[in-house]
């Protein structure tokens, strides 16, 4: 009972619940997509298209199943697409930022812990969602993204990015915090500033992996889950360079494996 009470008092419990809800929504969307095309598999480049045009996206656009299942991102309304990218960011990126969310929350004045977590997430998710809408969205509508080689190429590019000094610098920056003033607009500004720096570092560190997730096609939820776990472990590691290299090796191996699978039919 005391463990349950302790869990209930956690000021970031709602954030964890939000992440779980995001994954459930993605699962539901996957189920809806399979039901609508009957084959259980969309085309290779349809990852984000599927996200934007099924499940909640379909509700938002009021489209038919058929139209929704095949409509490219460009035709989906921004109102429908943006929440879906935010959903993907919430599911994939918020777990990696939980230490920062907890830091912002737990080192704020006691009575503004939940608010601090919310302020952090608004900025952090806003950054990721903007990146997804402005960069990932257009990218996935391009012709090459429909190629079966899109995923192995994206994984290989992510592996190479892992080995750059800029990536390591960004990953290290994910471990830095900012002073959090206690009260009023300064407090909100302080949390926002922390979220902005943390989110920018996170974006620079993980953008290539998010591209891979966005073009993952069939089995996309498995890819997203695996990549989320990998990024989270990398960001929690006390040895960033070692973690970077290990993830680079994993991504490289995954790229080779997928490419081989495509070539062998």
């Amino acid at each position, binding site marked *: 009972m005391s*463990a349950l009470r*302790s869990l209930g008092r956690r000021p970031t419990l709602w954030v964890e619940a939000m992440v779980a809800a995001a994954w459930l929504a993605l699962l539901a969307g996957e189920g809806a997509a399979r039901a609508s095309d009957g084959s259980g598999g969309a085309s290779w480049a349809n990852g984000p298209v599927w996200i934007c045009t099924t499940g909640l996206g379909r509700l938002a656009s009021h489209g038919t199943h058929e139209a929704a299942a095949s409509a490219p991102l460009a035709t989906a309304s921004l109102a429908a697409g943006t929440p879906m990218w935010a959903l993907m960011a919430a599911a994939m990126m918020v777990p990696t930022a939980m*230490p*920062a969310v907890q*830091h912002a929350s*737990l*080192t*704020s*004045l*006691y*009575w503004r812990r939940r608010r601090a977590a919310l302020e952090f997430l608004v900025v952090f998710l806003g950054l990721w969602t903007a990146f997804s809408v402005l960069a990932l969205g257009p990218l996935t509508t391009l012709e090459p993204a429909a190629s079966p080689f899109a995923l192995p190429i994206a994984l290989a590019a992510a592996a190479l990015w892992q080995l750059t000094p800029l990536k390591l610098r960004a990953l*290290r920056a994910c*471990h*830095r*915090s*900012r*002073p*959090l*003033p*206690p*009260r009023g607009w*300064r407090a909100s500004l302080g949390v926002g500033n922390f979220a902005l720096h943390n989110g920018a570092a996170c974006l620079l560190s993980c953008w290539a992996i998010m591209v891979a997730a966005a073009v993952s096609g069939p089995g996309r939820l498995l890819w997203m889950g695996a990549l989320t776990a990998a990024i989270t472990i990398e960001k*929690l*590691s*006390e*040895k*960033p*360079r*070692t973690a970077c290299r290990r993830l680079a090796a994993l991504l490289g191996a995954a790229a080779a494996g997928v490419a081989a699978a495509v070539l062998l039919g």
Partner: protein
Amino acid sequence: MANGNQLLVRYEARSTQGQDALQHYARAVGAMKEREPSDPTSWDYQAAIHGTESNPLSLQRQCEHESWFFFPWHRIYLYYFEQIVRQAVVDTGGPEDWTLPYWNYDLGGEFAALPDPFRQPADEQTNPLYVGVRRPYYNAGGPLPELVSTEEAALALREFIGNAMFGGNNKSPHRPRFWGQSGLPEETPHGTVHVQVGGWMRNPEEAAWDPIFWLHHANIDRIWAVWNEKEGLPNPTESGWTNHDFSFFDAGGSQAAKTCGEVTETALLGYTYDPPPGGGTVEEVVPTPTEPPTPEPGAPTEPKFVGATEEPIYLEGESTNVPLDIDPNGQEEVQESAEPDDPRHLYVNVEEIRGESTPDTVYAMYLNLPEDASPADFENRYLTTLSFFGLERTTDPADDEAPHGMRVSTEVTEVIRRLRDKTDWDRERLWICFRPVVPEPSAEMPEEARELIDTSHASRHAPIEIGRISLSIDA
């Protein structure tokens, strides 16, 4: 130097046995300095295990600071280092039961000064224990100020795990933090003595090249043993601590490892201190079998923050007073927490400490110190002494380490209680006061040291930025 139960005994550097051990130590250090730097038993290699600014070789640059591994890592480090030096002592005709002396500066007076063999002769060519880059005041025989050398506050702590506790906080990849997790003794006397002695000692990447480093850390190790054995206080039992191992090189140059659980008592490693940390005589100390630790489940509680400063604070060698407003929502709880029978504790946290390098200056921190403070005010309102030792490594880690902010926490419940009882207390605001620690001239100290006080303590006030100072209550 073994007792009747075959435990080796480490002696205070100024004791007869300690002085004898220092003579052998000097010869052994000289011999080790002659060895190739790539030899794991060489002076250079052993020092670089703690830290180095060069490319690290195997097991180098491994020192554990700012976490609950601080005490065990350094105990194991000293254990294997002592074996290597002992072999060198034997090779140079010394006793087979040689032990590393310790420097007990807490005894005050002449004990607080560097032991003579480290200062005289003042020639690095002929005296392997002399280091010319130390703060001149200390090489001239000046004693450490009490605020720097005291172990009293460390031994008053009742728990091992925690930011403001004895041993530092849990360092686990499952509990990432944005700040360091040092315990209070890691700051005072550990960090403060490092920074005050100065020179190589001021920088973790160079500290172990100074031969006094090892006697300083033997004393820190003794303080841990006293905390365990005299105060009867327990070490962590979490498997993440007890099963964590660290590797070093033994006297033969081979890699060897021990877990934290294997070094919870000095007797388990075959040595004790004189006087024994648990009391009694050296002859009475016997090795005691270790009990298998029982894991203690339970989530750690997070502190509640009830007040903080609004703007960053800058320390540049001057006295500084900083207001810390207590939020109206927390003022009642602070009052209640300071009641004598209240189980809660109040802490002041110095957070987000940044700077390009560790300054030469250490600062004593006080609560509500008046302008015309009396000696009693200084005593009753003292919180802790800040050294900022290792600041370079936290803000700009050169190796494969995750960066983090530096943070020092100290309990203030008793001080607040005292102030409140004297009605010298404003429930809405605290004043945090920083005062640079400078030795007081006295007739007992060598004249040369007295003359060097000012020049030695005004040499380099590297500015320090403190992002925030907060007041918190444990749950």
